């Protein structure tokens, strides 16, 4: 009885293995299609149906099935189509600028907001100091007259 159950489990595993493997390949393929650009239409590969995009999909599928890693496939695509084929520029060389500039912009913006806020805070007491005692006395008198 136990032997029969074990045989059934083994059979189920053997039958399920290709499907599980295929799902894994499809998931990795989908991930890669979201990290690679179509060189002719400049859209994500996942969104493109141009002839070269279809060819790149076939290439990615074949490379994954041959056991290549995502990094190896990306390297091969860069060798064929140049670094612009990657949706995210590499964090090195000139591509590093694409990562640094937004961060530098955020920092510069925060520093700017801080500087403006500080300038406004400094200016606020100066404006009240400009009001002469005579004017203050007149305002006080008019307020008292208004209350009466």
């Amino acid at each position, binding site marked *: 009885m136990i032997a029969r159950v074990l045989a059934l489990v083994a059979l189920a595993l053997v039958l399920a293995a290709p499907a599980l493997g295929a799902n894994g390949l499809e998931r990795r393929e989908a991930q890669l299609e979201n990290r690679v650009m179509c*060189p*002719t239409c400049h859209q994500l590969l996942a969104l493109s149906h141009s*002839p*070269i995009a279809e*060819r790149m999909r076939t*290439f990615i599928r074949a490379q994954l099935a041959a056991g290549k890693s995502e990094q190896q496939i990306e390297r091969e695509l860069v*060798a*064929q*189509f*140049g670094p*612009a*084929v990657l949706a995210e520029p590499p964090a090195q060389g000139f591509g590093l600028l694409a990562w640094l*500039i937004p961060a*530098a912009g955020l920092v*510069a913006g925060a*520093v700017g907001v801080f500087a403006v806020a500080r300038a406004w805070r400094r200016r606020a007491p100066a404006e009240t100091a400009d009001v002469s005692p005579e004017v203050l006395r007149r305002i006080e008198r008019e307020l008292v007259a208004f209350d009466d």
Partner: protein
Amino acid sequence: MRSAGRLGAIALVAGLLVLLVVHIATAQRGARIAAAVAAGQKPAAPDFELDRIGRDGKLKLSSLHGRVVVLNFWASWCQACKDEARTVEAAVRRWQPRGVVFVGVDSQDFTSDARRFARRFGLTYGSVHDGSGSVMTRYGVTGLPETWTLDRRGRLVDHIPGVADAGRLDSAIERARRS
């Protein structure tokens, strides 16, 4: 400290502006070249150095000065390029013995597919690989195939957008030879 920060911000903005201007200028230069040739001018052909397909080494366009050159932009995935391939090869057989050099510029394509394409259509002329399409952009190529002819001084004298027929190719080559 404050002036250093201001200088840094100005340098950053200036750098970004320069990059933007260079990008726009590069993109428009190709379109200007096509317009200039259509107006009868003969602008210098943008030089390039690209890997040869099916052979080792690179080809530098300027190394062909002194020869009439036909530059044919194509890709293996392009149906119109398949339609044109045999016409171009026939022109190669007519004109190569008379000193005309044909260079295929395989654009935005896998080199393995390009080699297969060349075998399938029996192409005897050499091609180079412009995988990123940067040379395409410099020549203002907006669709494949496109053909340019250069005179012996490396100037662009004719432009055939789309599929070239035998008569159009011959007249473009004659023009380059007379120039």
